[in-house]
Every structure is written in C-alpha cells, then in structure tokens.
C-alpha cells in the first residue's frame, strides 16, 4: 500500500518533473552554444557541457555563485537572464504541485488508509472490529476500551470519526472512514488478522449489517459475529447462515417488558447483570399486569404486542393506519390527542407504551395519557440519544433506548459469553430465587451495577491455578478464588454465578465445590475484586499465599535452603531443623 502512495505521488508529479527536465536541458544547451569572452576581451569558445550544467545547477536553485568559471559575454548574460526566470517558474510549478498533492483529499485518504493498514498489521493484542460507530458504537467502544479490549472501527461518516478522535480513550481506537458493507474494507480492518476475535455489525442499516455478517462468516468462520437488526426477516436470514448472536433491540426490549410484568425480580436481576458496570443501580419500576395501550404499531409496537399477548395482557393499539392486519383491538388515530386515548380506554388501563419512531410525539403521548390517568405506568421509546435531556426531564417508568440496549447486549456477549447461557437458565428460576440473588448482588457492590466476567481454568487464562490443579494434582475449592490476595482472611466482593463443566451447568456453585482444570466460571463483583482475583489466578506465589497462608520462597532461596541445610544465613532452614 505504501508503494501505491509512492506511485500516486510520482504520477501526479509527472508534468512538473518533465517541465524541470526540459528547462534544465534548454538552459544547459543554450550555454554550450553561446560564445564567451576571455579575460583580454577576446571572443572565446562557448562553455563546455560540464561547466554549463554546473552553472545552471547553482543558478536554478537560486544559490548564485556568480559568473563561473570566468566573466560572461553580453550574449551569455542575456541567455542567463532567460535561464533564471525559466528555472524560477519551473521550480515554483513543481513545489506548488507537490503542495497541492499533499493537500489533496484523495491523496490524504490514501495515506491514512496506508497508515491504518500498517497499524492493524502491527496489532498484537486481541481486538474486535466494530462496524458503525454511531451512538451505539461509541457506547460499546468506550466500554470495551475501559475493559482494556482493543477496538478497530469502520465508520462511513467522517464527522463521526473526528468525534471519535476527540474522545478520551485509554488505547488508540483505529478508525477507517469507509463503508463497512464492502468486504475489502473489512479485510483492511483486519478480518483475517490472527488477533481478530470478532465482528460487531451495529450500523443502523440492516442491509449493511447483513452484508458484514455474511462477509465475516465466509472470510473468517472462526470469528464471533454479533449483528444488530430491526427487521424480523433479516434476523431470520442472519440466523440461517450462522451469525452467532443477533441483537434485535425491539424484540429484546419487548421481551424484557413482558418478562418484567411476569416476573419483576427476574428483570431486576437481568438489569443488574447487563447494566454498564459501576453505574448506580436504577430505581425499581415494576410494570403492572392488566390492560395496556400501545401507541404506534410499527416494528417496535408489533414486538411489544407479540410479547405482551404471550403474557396474557389485554391490549389496545392506537395507530393512524386504518388497515392494520392485526387481530388486536385497534383504534384509528393519533395517540397524541386525548380523544383516541379515551376510546382506547386509557382511564381503566394500567400502562401505556409510547412507541412511535418520533421522539416528540412519544413524549406528547405520554404527557397526554398521564393527564387522563395519573396512575399510568409509562413506557417510552427514545429514538435519538440527542433527546436525552427531554427524556431525563420527563422521567418515564421505562425508557427504551435502542442504542443502549444494543450496546449492553453486545458487551455482555463479548466480555462474558457465559452470561447469555446464565440468562437462559435464569428463565426457569422462581421469582423468589431471582430476588434473593439480586439482593445479594446489590449488597455486594454497594448499590452499583456489578462487573460480570468469565474465567476459564486453563493454562492461558489462569496459569497458576491450572498448574496447581493439573501439574501438581492438588485439590482446591471454589471458595479460594474469593479470598483477598492481600489478606487471606478477607473475602473479596465477588460471587460465582455459574460453573460450566463438561457441558453441565452448576448454577450458583457452593464455595466447597472442588475445582477441576477446564472449568468455566462466571463471576459478578466489583472491578477491584476482579483485579485481585486475576492476581490469584495468574501468580503462583499469590496463589500459594491464599491457599497455605505462607509467603512463597524464591527459586534461588529454595535451592540454597535445600543444598545447604546447615547454612548459617538460612533463617527458614534453621527453623525447619
């Protein structure tokens, strides 16, 4: 790619270079033809090629040593005047062309792309390709950066890229300004790179996401692919060729809403585990069961109706389109006016979903409805992050922000793949068990959203523990992973949620459970607890301390104490005797 920059520059410099060559040639030729004059004032033969070239070289570059090797004749001086002007024009033209080339957008784009590709090639740590860096992408990029995971992003809008550069990231985010739907751009972003771990297709265009998912699946099947979709048909299409995770934020939110009505504590627990770590736990709003009014029957409205119907709610839809092909009770009109809301039975309803694709309308619906029935439970759909201030001011019971939902889902999938497995198991839990776990988690992290992470007991992720279990065949209980490596009597603020062994799930494993190499564990806790636990997993000396309570001896010390048991300096050796 660097070669192409070079060739592009050469190509654009062709005309100025030829002009320069011609000017030099003409000037030199002229000087070799015009007769000179010697010291005595007699006509002398013209300059030789060597002298002429020497003179032109220093005159054209405006160094000007004077008339060398001897004083010039009048005819020569006349020609030299022409030479000076010609060469100034030639050089100015060349320099202006070069500057124009450097300023040229296309050329800069080529340079940037070349640099991007070079830096991708040098990436040694695992990274994810983020296609589309809008509101959602930015949320994900920030969170991943916070977790120390590198992100490479492809974004079409240049303004977005510039915003990205102004963000305060710990590691540089490599950004390419291009259309992610084109496979060659994905390749540039390192789709075939050995450190690439996955592709997140989260542009706001379903077709582009589909293209990214297919390209990634074909070119590098080993990658994890997460795609965002809004339309059910494209979702089915993606699942058909093996996209690992498809995030449909409408469906997801509707499902959560339905689950929250059915089992409030289940929702509370999911909300805790998928929240952005470190944030304050949001206040509880449990949606009531009863009659619901849904304004807007687009993709979101349909998803809500489908999911709430499954929970046996009685629903009324308000939509301006008179020909809805739906079995639900339907009122034609705008939810922003009082009359259709009344006809839909807003006075007796328990909740309203303002789910049109227009933020102002949604707020208007919510306010009108609340005036008619102050006890309503209000669910608002927020389409644009820019309107956050308005939605904060209104403070609905539930606000559905697509970008946040997608970001949360993607992060959970990347940082702890076990979590979605855990959620699957969670659906079968009774409400009381979920309530108990949620309460424990809240108490553990001081009413802040806990961090959720997975640990695999293998040589790469937990070398110390793996060595202990595998090489030395010694037993170790799960509870040991909860001890503080600074003071082993203390317990770290973290708890195990799931242990996966040989395809079998152990939910909320007990501390007494013996660990085995290859176990996969899911923990929740604070960020500091995670760091402390990492130390235990990685560092053999720390592990020894946690297990035995004794500080480990260094290799040299051990050797000395063994080979020289009577050594006077060996304090430990003496004590052992």
């Amino acid at each position, binding site marked *: 790619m660097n070669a192409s920059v070079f060739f*592009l520059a*050469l190509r654009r410099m062709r005309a100025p270079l030829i002009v320069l*060559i011609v000017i030099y040639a003409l000037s030199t030729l002229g000087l070799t033809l015009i007769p000179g004059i010697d010291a005595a004032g007699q006509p002398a033969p013209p300059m030789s090629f060597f*002298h002429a070239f020497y003179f032109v070289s220093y005159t054209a570059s405006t160094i000007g040593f004077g008339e060398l090797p001897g004083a010039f004749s009048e005819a020569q001086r006349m020609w030299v005047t022409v030479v000076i002007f010609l060469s100034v024009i030639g050089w100015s033209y060349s320099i202006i062309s070069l500057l124009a080339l450097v300023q040229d957008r296309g050329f800069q784009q080529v340079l940037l792309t070349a640099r991007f590709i070079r830096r991708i090639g040098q990436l040694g740590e695992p990274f994810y390709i983020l296609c589309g860096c809008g509101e959602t992408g930015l949320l994900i990029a920030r969170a991943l950066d916070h977790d120390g995971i590198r992100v490479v992003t492809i974004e079409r809008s240049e303004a977005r890229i510039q915003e990205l550069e102004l963000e305060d990231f710990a590691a540089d985010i490599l950004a390419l300004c291009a259309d992610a739907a084109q496979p060659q751009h994905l390749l540039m972003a390192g789709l075939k790179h050995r450190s690439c771990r996955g592709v997140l297709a989260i542009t706001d265009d379903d077709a582009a996401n589909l293209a990214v998912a297919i390209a990634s699946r074909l070119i590098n099947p080993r990658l994890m692919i997460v795609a965002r979709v809004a339309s059910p048909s494209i979702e089915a299409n993606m699942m058909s060729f093996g996209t690992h995770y498809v995030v449909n934020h409408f469906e997801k939110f509707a499902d959560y809403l339905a689950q929250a009505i059915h089992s409030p504590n289940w929702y509370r627990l999911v909300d805790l585990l998928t929240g952005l770590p470190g944030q304050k736990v949001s206040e509880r709003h449990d949606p009531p069961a009863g009659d619901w009014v849904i304004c807007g029957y687009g993709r979101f409205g349909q998803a809500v109706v489908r999911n709430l119907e499954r929970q046996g709610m009685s629903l009324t839809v308000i939509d301006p389109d008179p020909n809805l092909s739906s079995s639900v009770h339907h009122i034609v009109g705008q939810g922003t006016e009082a009359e259709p809301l009344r006809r839909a039975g807003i006075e007796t309803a328990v909740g309203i979903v303002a789910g049109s694709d227009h933020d102002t309308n949604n707020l208007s619906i919510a306010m009108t409805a609340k005036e008619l029935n102050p006890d309503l439970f209000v669910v608002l759909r927020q389409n644009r992050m820019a309107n956050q201030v308005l939605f904060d001011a209104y403070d609905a019971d539930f606000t559905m922000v697509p970008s946040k939902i997608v970001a949360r889902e993607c992060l959970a999938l990347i940082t702890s793949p076990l979590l979605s497995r855990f959620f699957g198991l969670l659906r079968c839990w009774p409400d009381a068990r979920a309530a108990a776990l949620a309460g424990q988690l809240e108490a553990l992290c001081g009413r802040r959203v806990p961090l959720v992470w997975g640990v695999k007991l293998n040589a790469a992720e937990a070398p110390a523990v793996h060595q202990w279990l595998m090489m030395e065949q010694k037993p170790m209980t799960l509870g040991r992973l909860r001890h503080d490596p600074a003071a082993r009597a203390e317990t770290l603020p973290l708890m195990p949620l799931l242990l996966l062994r040989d395809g079998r799930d152990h939910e909320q494993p007990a501390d007494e459970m013996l660990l085995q190499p290859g176990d996969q564990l899911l923990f929740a806790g604070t960020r500091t607890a995670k760091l402390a636990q990492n130390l235990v997993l990685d560092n053999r000396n720390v592990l020894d301390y946690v297990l035995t309570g004794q500080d480990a001896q260094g290799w040299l010390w051990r050797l000395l104490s063994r080979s020289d048991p009577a050594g006077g300096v060996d304090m430990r050796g003496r004590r052992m005797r």
Partner: protein
Amino acid sequence: MNLEKVVFGFFIVLAATLNFGFFIGDIDQPKHHHIYELFAAIVVNLVATVLKFGDRTQIGAVHLSTSLVADLQLVAAACVWGIAAHVTGEGMSPEVTISVVSLSGGALFANIVSVILLIAETVMLRR
C-alpha cells in the same frame, strides 16, 4: 487515437534512436560520437523515464526499470566524459571514447528492450 500514447511512443523511440545515433561509428573515434547527441539522448531518456512514472501494471514496471537502467548508463557515460575532459585533463583519447561509447551501448540495449516492450504492448492490445 490516444494522444498520451503518441507522446509516450514518441519519447521511447526517440530515446532509442538518439542513443543509437551516438553509439554508431568506430568505437575509438571521438569524431564519430558527437557530444550533443549524448546530451540529447540523456534529456530524452529522462523525459521518457518520467513519462513511465505511476503505471502500476507489470509491463509498466518493466518499462520503468529499463528506462532507469538506460539513464544510469548514459549518466555514467557523461560522467566519464566530464572527468576525462575537465578533471584529469586527458581529453577525448581513444580509451576514454571507448568507455563512453560502450556505456552508451549498454544504454542502447536497455532502450531496445523498451522499444520491444512498446511493440509487445501494442500487439497485445486487441481493439
């Protein structure tokens, strides 16, 4: 007809003909090898080289490399001439003439390769 191709072909052939004109004659006879012809050959060769810049095809790359070889040989010939005429004061003795002309002979060979490439390119073009 493509004007760019005309200019391109013109300079490549002119570089070869000028080079040939300088090269032809008894190898040790300064009279047979005029210095202005060498000068013209160098200038036209340089222009031909620049014209070949920026072509990323395989044949374009070979074109550029043959041209660079010719430039190198001709500049070397000019340097030998300059040193003999001005630095050592030996002048155009038969030995110097032989080395200048043989260097330009090398350049001539590179230029002939260029011309062959040009012909090959034209023959391959089926339009």
